């Protein structure tokens, strides 16, 4: 089959690789009908995430049709079922899965020892991600092996096109969890850093959850226009002070809820702290660029909530924890517990409350994937979200 294969920094190729096979009774194989490039794929593309190996198949936003089912998954799946595959692999049986904490499933990371060493305790296995999270082959391919397939799937109706359903795999529930874990109240101002795909989904989620005011922060005019269309007041951080503007919009008190939909590759080129991060990162003295975290911690209203769906990988420097502690801020973060949300979100899509396909700006054949990684990373051609068709 053809697949997008990682070979090193900014080196992803469309290659022929062996077809996946059932390796365990709980596996299933799906024929991929649509897959997407995620912002967190870019952290692998740019090699900010450790634990990648040449030959790894990329991709964790995938949907398709079941073509083969292992004997232990037949009670839940049959050939021909149409499924979206969540990016987190879940056993459904461990203590964390039973509590709904699917992204920290205790059994699905086959490289548990690596996860234990790096993070203290393992997290769930993820598709198409680093070997710290299992090194499972990803779904930017013609076929995908789904481990623990009896639990790791979302069945979707045939009547709705791929484009409206695909993002149940990651960015829609990720944006949703980013907003939901803020416990948005009708009096709340919610500030969202980053108007990429997750940021856009977070904006829509905050609107649906009834925030009084949603403020979105970015620098790219086309992304800001999309944020505004979704109901956000926008701040272009290259043209005005984020802190001043947020305080102005909240009567000097700051937003109650702050959401980081940017993560470790913040691009605030004009600020002193981001230049400091760039320099330290270039000298390998810091792994991530936490400009957004610093800004959120500083501007958030006392007793507010910081929600961090943005991905961080390692060690961060100059974090103003004093502000967090003294203002009594709550931090909620984590990879998304996809299956915790997908019943509700699928209902919202079926009922036409939201059409997540609004975010798609590029649809291309799989073989153009390597080129589209670059287009997406460099934000060329108005690119916000790329869907690939194998």
């Amino acid at each position, binding site marked *: 089959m053809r697949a997008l294969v990682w070979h090193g920094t*900014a080196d992803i190729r469309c290659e022929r690789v062996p077809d996946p096979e059932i390796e365990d009774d709980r596996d299933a194989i799906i024929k991929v009908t649509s897959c997407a490039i995620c912002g967190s794929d870019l952290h692998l593309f*740019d090699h900010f995430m450790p634990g990648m190996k040449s030959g790894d198949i990329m991709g964790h936003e995938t949907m398709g049709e079941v073509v083969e089912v292992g004997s232990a998954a037949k009670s839940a799946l049959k050939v021909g079922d149409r499924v979206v595959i969540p990016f987190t692999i879940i056993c459904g049986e461990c203590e964390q899965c039973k509590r*709904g904490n699917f992204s920290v499933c205790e059994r699905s990371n086959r490289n548990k020892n690596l996860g234990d060493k790096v993070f203290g305790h393992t997290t769930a296995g993820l598709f198409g991600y680093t070997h710290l999270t299992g090194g499972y082959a990803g779904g930017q391919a013609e076929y995908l092996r789904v481990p623990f397939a009896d639990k790791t799937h979302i069945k979707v109706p045939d009547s709705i096109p791929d484009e409206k359903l695909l993002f149940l795999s990651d960015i829609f529930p990720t944006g949703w969890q980013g907003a*939901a*874990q803020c*416990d948005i*109240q*009708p*009096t*709340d101002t919610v500030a969202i850093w980053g108007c990429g795909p997750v940021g*856009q989904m977070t904006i*829509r*989620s905050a*609107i*649906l*959850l*009834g925030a009084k005011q949603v403020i979105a922060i970015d*620098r*790219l*005019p*086309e*992304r800001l*226009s*999309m944020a*505004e*269309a*979704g*109901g956000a007041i926008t701040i272009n951080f*290259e043209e005005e002070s984020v802190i001043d503007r947020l305080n102005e919009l909240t009567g000097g008190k700051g937003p109650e809820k702050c959401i980081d939909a940017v993560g470790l590759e913040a*691009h605030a*080129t004009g600020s002193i702290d981001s230049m400091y991060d*760039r*320099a330290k*990162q*270039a*000298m390998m003295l810091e792994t991530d660029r936490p400009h957004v975290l610093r800004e959120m911690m500083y501007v958030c209203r006392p*007793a507010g*909530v910081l929600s961090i769906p943005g991905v961080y990988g390692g060690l961060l420097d100059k974090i103003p924890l004093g502000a967090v502690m003294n203002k*009594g801020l*709550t931090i*909620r973060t984590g990879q998304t517990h996809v299956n*915790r949300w997908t019943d*509700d979100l699928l209902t*919202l899509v079926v009922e*036409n*409350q*939201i*059409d*997540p396909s*609004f*975010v798609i*700006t590029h649809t291309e054949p799989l073989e153009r994937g390597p080129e589209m990684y670059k287009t997406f*990373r*460099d*934000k*060329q*051609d*108005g690119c*916000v979200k790329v869907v690939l068709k194998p």
Partner: protein
Amino acid sequence: MAKGLGYLSIALGAAELLAPRAMCRAAGLNGMEPLVRSYGAREIATGVAILTSHNRAPWIWGRVAGDMADIATVATGIRQNGEKTTNAILTLAALAAVTAVDVMCASGLESEKGNRKTAVADYSDRSGFPGGLQAARGAARHLKIPADMKTPEILKTPEMSSSAQAAS
């Protein structure tokens, strides 16, 4: 071209850092060794940043700023040190040429990515809400937020509690 400028920065920076006296002699600058050494550190840092960053344009513009500082320094040297004028003028000419190359490279990188202050697409019709924005506001308020993600009652202000009750 950007990569080449990155390597040039590191090579030049290393020379300035390790042999400031020779560099000063060649450029017609006397007594400016500490300054030249600091410029060397700057060149190395810029070079590393150019080679490691996927967005090289700001760092190449950083080189342009550095070129300006170099030109100002050599020009100051010409005024202070008459007998080495020839060396200094040659250095100035070389710096002007390098500056031109840096500006060309930075401009080229910028135009590759487009002028990011101008929208390359208009997405103002993409609300994502088929029923319209007004209908979407609060439409999912009825969905239950898990207990582990809720703000503890004790941390809620009276205003928050009353508005939440009114909304439900």
